């Protein structure tokens, strides 16, 4: 593991950056352009530094001077277009590896860059004395698509009056989009930043504002910033606009900026920021590292929160007035997150991408501590449980999340996460969802470390890291101390071991070096004779995303005598654990029962099993393992746990377990919890939904009024007239949240006809009717929005007679009432808009639900108008969500087109990202389903989108990749026409013609549909138990020159097995089996070659090129790539986890056995055996060989086609 080695920081560059000047002379809002220059001061660390590689994207570079001498330069950005020629391949494996290669080729962490400057020969003749070089680059940006975002509202007036502003943004290191720099988190330097802007504007940037000076014509002013603390370029940002300025009343060195007219909101929203400051400074016993802090609130923000050195950029939508309840904690959380990242992420930066988890982990962890302090322990535990559930669900669904990927040997071929359709080697190739989960897991792991070494030590470690860094930051560059400000996994672990003296190696190995979570199944039996609890804990460590856990686990048993903790050892083979019980059943003595927290309570023990003293059992109650526990205990135990266990996590677990026990006792337990005011409100909210589900399950035996109705009446309605709700008073937030949630849950109730009961609907309509907020000092917009959601929830599918067209006349009476409310709400919103237009959002959802259930005609036009640019972003997202849903349900090609056009053209980056995200979540079709939408044009369009259309935004490109994966899978989209090959060899024998539903890929079924057709078809598919790959050859596709050089040109290898099936007059049907290893050898070689080509060209191109254009020679290299040979399924088979492939090979055996191909079978067996043995080796090789693009079926891997060899 290279972590052990990386003691100090070794720069991948032959020079060290010490200082950088960024000067932007002109920002033109009309044209959306920027002109400026940068000057980098660098120290060569080698003799004869002749090339300087810097990062720069989309900048137009006018001139480069090194120490006043003009220097030639080359600008080449391979990520602009990932795959360079009109390839017919269209397969994601190919794309992913090409994309990773492209990103690697300019990766600053590897010393690469898009901009290669040739140091004038005069300078390198100076020889040994390693003189300082000053690299001066003039550049401009015209209508930047990434890096900087211009918001220019289209109204009358000057730019300042219009509220026009511009700010920098990006996902991870994206500073290269707006000025040339070394875009790495590990290259620190001091900064001087100058921005000349219109006199009516303010330029906010990193560091201290030294002075502001008018230009000579007095129409502009220049902001001079100095950042003396060494900072990495990705942590530099800029925001320019006619901001209103608020100096924090508590901390005068903190300044807040917002857009015009929002100052009152800013004042309120920022009124508690100082508390967050105080909290962090106190726990870290460390001053905030920068001398000032700035918060800027901008419109159309890329993300809600982004932190840069001494400033943070937020979405303006986080601002709120004192009347808003729901937004308040959210905004506060965002501020706390931003501030935590100031310490870890901005001030202390990461050494390499593999160390990202430490910084995300620490900032997430201290943010958690803030949550605990501010919102309480219950909220904190609830949050931790939520985060744990999220990561567990994600990993079980998508495969493991690896915190600390190691790329052994420094080679790029290594793929530690073969289950993913993207590479985790670079932040820029990661899917956004994966990155979010990565952050989530990182802070959970930090919490595990805290559990292990205590919080005190944990904070000491942080303090130590911070003090080291702040000592280093004040040093001059020459002291070589700056690398202390970079944090690596190794340094972090070392610090932990120094401070705590504890070895957390196993913990790190389990959760950081390895991906996956643990899945426990628990059950128990009580042995009365021995008075022993026999607990059985099993694990599933074979499914994807899981891992095996060995080590201690805490089990808490609540008995009649009290609560007892037991620590069990989970070992390889022991499933059963005997836990001695304390109390013999002594229920008769009327005694209070002590709980874990020392409290003693009276319980009604009549529900218990008379023989057992056990009230409830909890496995890993402290969540000190990243796990999912499925535990079986009797319903009454869950009920006791819900009522009497004081831990909110236990209560929530009990609630979700009780869903499976729809009995009157569960009902009672839930109702009691609902009524209990001491109980945490989020538990009570969850109980509402559980109660609704239970009520539905026991609909035939349900007694009394609909669930929760009488409770709601008692809590929120007038004493004298129970059908009228009290006038709103939200001063008690717990009741407020409950009041909001109960109607939503009640609307989920269904009667025997599976309709929402009439009195529930009337009840909700009455709530809307009598809602009166006049005496309330809080806004009721969220409450009203929830009432609309309740109406939505009450909808059930319409009874359709002969598919008649939905008209006003045949509208159901209840639906008419609902529709009237929605119409009124939506119209009122136009006149009196609510905060964040929550009501419009709910109404749009309701309308879509009405359409979906067939009550009103399904029509996208309303949503389209609300999705237009110019509506509030929440409204747009809601409308787009409806459109995405419409696209799926109606299979509408026009709407899909419309959405994709918006992805390409919308001004707001967030909206573009969201559209792709929603299309992935709710796809119009998937790789396993068949759809008319799936056609060649769509493939081309999406391919273009991810290949070149999204080069300005890493996140968007990864979103596009995700969508492509969701729609078409890893391999060649099934809807593409057969590649131009001469002969199809259908190798399925009759019995193997599968039920097409099992077949994941359409391509296979195509073959099966035309069994007799002749032509060569490359099948690539998910490994399938029965089918074997089919490969064919005919006319080799373009670029076959290289073919001749590959080993493929040779006759069939021994490992390549040909199986002739029964000759049933259908012509040649063959089974071919390739030796996977050999395929990989080939792949590897070709990849090496193309890599070499890229590097070669990047290094050796001598003439400057125009930005954005590829030198043709590179294109040539790229040309060869797609034509590399590809076995149809080698990647599939091997890239699967080991267990899978073993399963499959087993299937193969079986299959062959059936066909009585004894001889062949023997061979097969041999081969598979060989495969088993060499699995590890293979894996390893494969790791060197992530470039699976060569797998395309279209490429002529199978030069030696069976038919030919026949």
């Amino acid at each position, binding site marked *: 593991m290279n972590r052990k080695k990386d003691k100090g920081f070794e720069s991948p560059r032959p020079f060290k950056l010490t200082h950088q000047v960024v000067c932007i002379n002109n920002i033109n809002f009309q044209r959306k352009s920027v002109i400026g220059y940068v000057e980098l001061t660098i120290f060569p660390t080698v003799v004869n530094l002749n090339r300087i590689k810097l990062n720069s994207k989309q900048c137009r570079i006018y001139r480069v001077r090194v120490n006043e001498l003009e220097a030639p330069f080359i600008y080449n950005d391979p990520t602009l277009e990932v795959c360079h020629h009109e390839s017919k391949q269209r397969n994601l494996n190919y794309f992913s590896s090409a994309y990773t290669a492209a990103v690697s080729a300019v990766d600053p962490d590897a010393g690469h860059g898009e901009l290669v400057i040739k140091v004038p020969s005069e300078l390198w003749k100076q020889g040994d004395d390693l003189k300082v070089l000053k690299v001066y680059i003039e550049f401009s940006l015209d209508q930047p698509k990434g890096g900087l975002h211009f918001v220019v509202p289209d109204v009358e007036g000057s730019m300042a009056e219009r509220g026009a502003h511009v700010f920098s943004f990006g996902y991870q290191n994206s500073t290269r989009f707006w000025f040339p720099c070394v875009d790495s988190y590990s290259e620190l330097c001091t900064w001087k930043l100058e921005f000349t802007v219109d006199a009516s504007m*303010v330029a906010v940037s990193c560091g*201290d*504002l030294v002075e*502001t000076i*008018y230009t000579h014509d007095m129409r502009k002013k220049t902001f001079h910033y100095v950042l003396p603390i060494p900072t990495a370029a990705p942590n530099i940002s800029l925001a320019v606009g006619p901001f209103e*300025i608020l*100096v924090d009343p*508590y901390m005068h060195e903190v*300044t807040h900026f917002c*857009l015009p*007219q*929002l100052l*009152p909101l800013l*004042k*309120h929203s920022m009124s*508690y920021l100082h*508390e967050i400051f105080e909290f962090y400074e106190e726990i870290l016993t460390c001053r905030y590292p920068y001398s000032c802090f700035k918060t800027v609130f901008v419109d159309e923000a890329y993300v809600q929160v982004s932190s840069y050195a001494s400033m943070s950029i937020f979405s*303006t*939508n986080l*601002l709120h*007035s*004192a009347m808003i309840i729901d937004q*308040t904690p959210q905004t506060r959380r965002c501020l706390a997150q931003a501030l935590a990242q100031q310490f870890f992420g901005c001030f202390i930066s990461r050494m390499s991408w593999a160390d990202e988890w430490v910084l995300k982990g620490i900032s997430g962890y201290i943010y958690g501590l803030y949550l605990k*302090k501010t919102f*309480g*322990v*219950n*909220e904190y535990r609830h949050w931790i449980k939520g985060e744990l559930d999220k990561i567990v669900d994600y990993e079980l669904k998508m495969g493991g999340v690896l915190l600390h990927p190691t790329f052994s040997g420094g080679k790029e071929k290594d793929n530690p996460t073969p289950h993913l359709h993207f590479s985790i080697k670079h932040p820029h190739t990661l899917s956004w969802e994966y990155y979010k989960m990565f952050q989530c897991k990182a802070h959970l792991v930090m919490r595990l470390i805290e559990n292990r070494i205590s919080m005190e030590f944990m904070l000491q470690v942080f303090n130590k890291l911070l003090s080291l860094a702040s000592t280093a930051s004040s040093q001059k560059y020459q002291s070589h101390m700056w690398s202390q400000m970079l944090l690596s996994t190794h340094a972090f672990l070392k610090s932990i071991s120094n401070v705590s003296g504890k070895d957390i190696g196993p913990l790190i190995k389990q959760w950081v070096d390895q991906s996956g979570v643990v899945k426990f199944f628990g059950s128990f039996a009580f042995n009365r004779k021995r008075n022993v609890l026999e607990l059985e804990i099993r694990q599933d460590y074979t499914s994807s995303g899981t891992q095996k856990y060995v080590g201690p686990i805490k089990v808490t048993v609540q008995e009649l005598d009290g609560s007892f903790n037991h620590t069990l050892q989970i070992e390889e083979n022991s499933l059963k654990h005997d836990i001695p019980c304390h109390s013999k059943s002594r229920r008769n003595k009327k005694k209070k029962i002590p709980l874990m927290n020392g409290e003693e309570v009276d319980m009604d023990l009549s529900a218990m099993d008379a023989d057992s003293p056990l009230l409830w059992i909890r496995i890993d109650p402290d969540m000190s393992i990243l796990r999912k526990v499925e535990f079986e205990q009797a319903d009454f135990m869950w009920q006791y746990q819900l009522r009497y266990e004081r831990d909110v996590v236990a209560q929530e677990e009990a609630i979700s377990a009780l869903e499976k026990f729809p009995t009157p006792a569960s009902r009672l337990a839930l109702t009691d919890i609902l009524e209990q005011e001491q109980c*945490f*409100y989020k538990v009570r909210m969850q109980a509402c939904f559980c109660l609704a589900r239970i009520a539905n399950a026991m609909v035939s035996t349900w007694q009394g009024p609909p669930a929760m109705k009488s409770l709601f009446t008692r809590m929120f309605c*007038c004493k*004298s007239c129970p059908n009228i709700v009290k006038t709103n008073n939200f*001063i008690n*937030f*717990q009741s407020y949240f409950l009041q909001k949630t109960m109607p939503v849950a009640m609307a989920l109730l269904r009667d025997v006809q599976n309709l929402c009961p009439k009195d529930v609907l009337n009840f909700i309509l009455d709530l809307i009717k009598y809602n*009166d907020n006049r*005496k*309330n*000092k809080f*806004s009721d917009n969220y409450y009203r929005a929830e009432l609309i959601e309740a109406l939505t929830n009450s909808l059930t599918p319409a009874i359709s007679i002969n598919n008649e*067209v939905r008209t*006003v006349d045949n509208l159901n009476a209840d639906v008419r009432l609902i*529709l009237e409310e929605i119409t*009124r709400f*939506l*119209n*009122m919103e136009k006149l009196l808009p609510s*905060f*964040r237009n929550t009501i419009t959002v709910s109404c749009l959802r309701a*309308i879509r639900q*009405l359409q979906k259930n067939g009550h*009103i*005609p399904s*029509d996208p036009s*309303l949503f389209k*108008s609300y999705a237009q640019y*110019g*509506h*509030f*972003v929440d409204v747009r997202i809601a409308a787009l969500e409806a459109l995405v849903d419409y696209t799926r349900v109606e299979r509408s090609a026009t709407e899909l087109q419309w959405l994709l056009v918006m992805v390409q053209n919308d001004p707001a980056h967030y909206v573009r990202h969201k559209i792709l995200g929603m299309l992935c979540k709710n796809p119009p079709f998937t790789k396993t389903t068949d759809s008319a939408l799936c056609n060649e044009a769509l493939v081309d369009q999406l391919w273009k989108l991810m290949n070149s259309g999204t080069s300005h935004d890493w996140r968007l490109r990864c979103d596009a990749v995700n969508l492509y994966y969701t729609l078409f899978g890893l391999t060649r989209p099934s809807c593409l026409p057969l590649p131009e090959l001469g002969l199809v060899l259908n190798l399925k024998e009759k019995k193997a013609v599968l039920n097409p539903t099992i077949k994941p890929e359409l391509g296979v079924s195509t073959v099966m549909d035309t069994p007799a057709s002749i032509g060569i078809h490359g099948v690539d598919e998910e490994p399938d138990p029965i089918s074997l790959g089919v490969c064919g050859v005919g006319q080799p596709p373009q670029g076959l020159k290289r073919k001749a050089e590959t080993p493929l040109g040779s006759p069939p290898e021994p490992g390549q097995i040909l199986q002739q099936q029964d000759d049933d007059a259908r012509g040649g049907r063959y089974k071919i089996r390739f030796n996977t290893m050999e395929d990989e050898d080939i792949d590897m070689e070709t990849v090496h070659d193309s890599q070499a080509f890229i590097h070669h060209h990047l290094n050796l191109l001598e003439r400057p090129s125009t930005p954005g254009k590829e030198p043709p020679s590179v294109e040539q290299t790229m040309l060869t790539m797609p034509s590399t040979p590809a076995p149809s399924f080698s990647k599939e088979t091997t890239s699967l986890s080991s267990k899978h492939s073993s399963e499959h090979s087993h299937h193969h055996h079986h299959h062959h056995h059936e066909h009585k191909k004894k001889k062949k079978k023997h061979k097969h067996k041999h081969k598979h055996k060989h495969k088993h043995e060499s699995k590890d080796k293979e894996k390893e090789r494969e790791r060197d060989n992530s470039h699976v693009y060569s797998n395309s079926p279209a490429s002529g891997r199978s030069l030696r086609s069976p038919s030919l060899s026949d």
Partner: protein
Amino acid sequence: MADPAVSSGGSLTAGARGGSSKAASSPAENYHLARRRTLQVAVSALLTECGFESAEKAAVETLTEMMQSYITEIGRCAKAYCEHTARSIPTLPDTVVALIEMGFNVDTLPVYAKRSQRMVITAPPVTNSPVTPKALSAGQKRTHPAHIPSHFPEFPDPHTYIKTPTFREPVSDYQVVREKAATQRRDVERALTRFMAKTGETQSLFKDDITAFPLIAARPSTIPYLSALLPSELELQTLEETDSSEQDDQTDSENTTGNIINDDPGADKENSMLPPSGGVPSTKASEDNVIDNPYLRPVKKPKVRRKK
């Protein structure tokens, strides 16, 4: 011969009386009506005197109107003359001058007044002062105190100024009020939105009947976040009204900040209640001069020697 006229006059007075009692709208109006009736009687009498047996109502009305104008003009003129001479109450000569001015031969007046066939018009009946309904009688009717002359009008009936608390069933009342308020609000909202929908562009959910549930068309705004984030005027108003009530909540917000707060979402409450107008900004205002924040510093004039 006089019968019809008398009868008409009688019926007129009767009508006037009936009208006054029936229409009982306001005293001023009543008075006005009565005067008009009297004039009408006079006109009818003159007509009878001239030999008319009957007259159309419209004609009588017109004549009455002319007569009224004439008398009003005499009065106005007389008043003007008297004021011209710095007096306040017109005297006989004022009236005479006024009549002369209006082209009336004053000398003919005595003769005309003494004409034989003139009809005597009975004085309009004095209407009784309205009797206070039993239900309204309240308190003691007050007599004048000693210092007020007795010919001054009497005090109005006590029910007009005495506060009499009344009670109704509170239960039903609340319900009715809420019901009423809700219905009213809903009606207003519906009417308003319908109006807006009728007068502007709309979108519809149905193809067959686009007027069924008209939705005001969604119109993109140039700066959408402003309307979405800033509280509406209505909400601001509410905030002002309720502002006074939050004074007492403020005090406990300071002392709890240090403690770890268990499961108490009141934490939000405390801070969200820190009103923007609380103690802090006021101290800030006084300290404003002291604050040294680079963004508040004045912008410097360009130097002659420019930096770099």
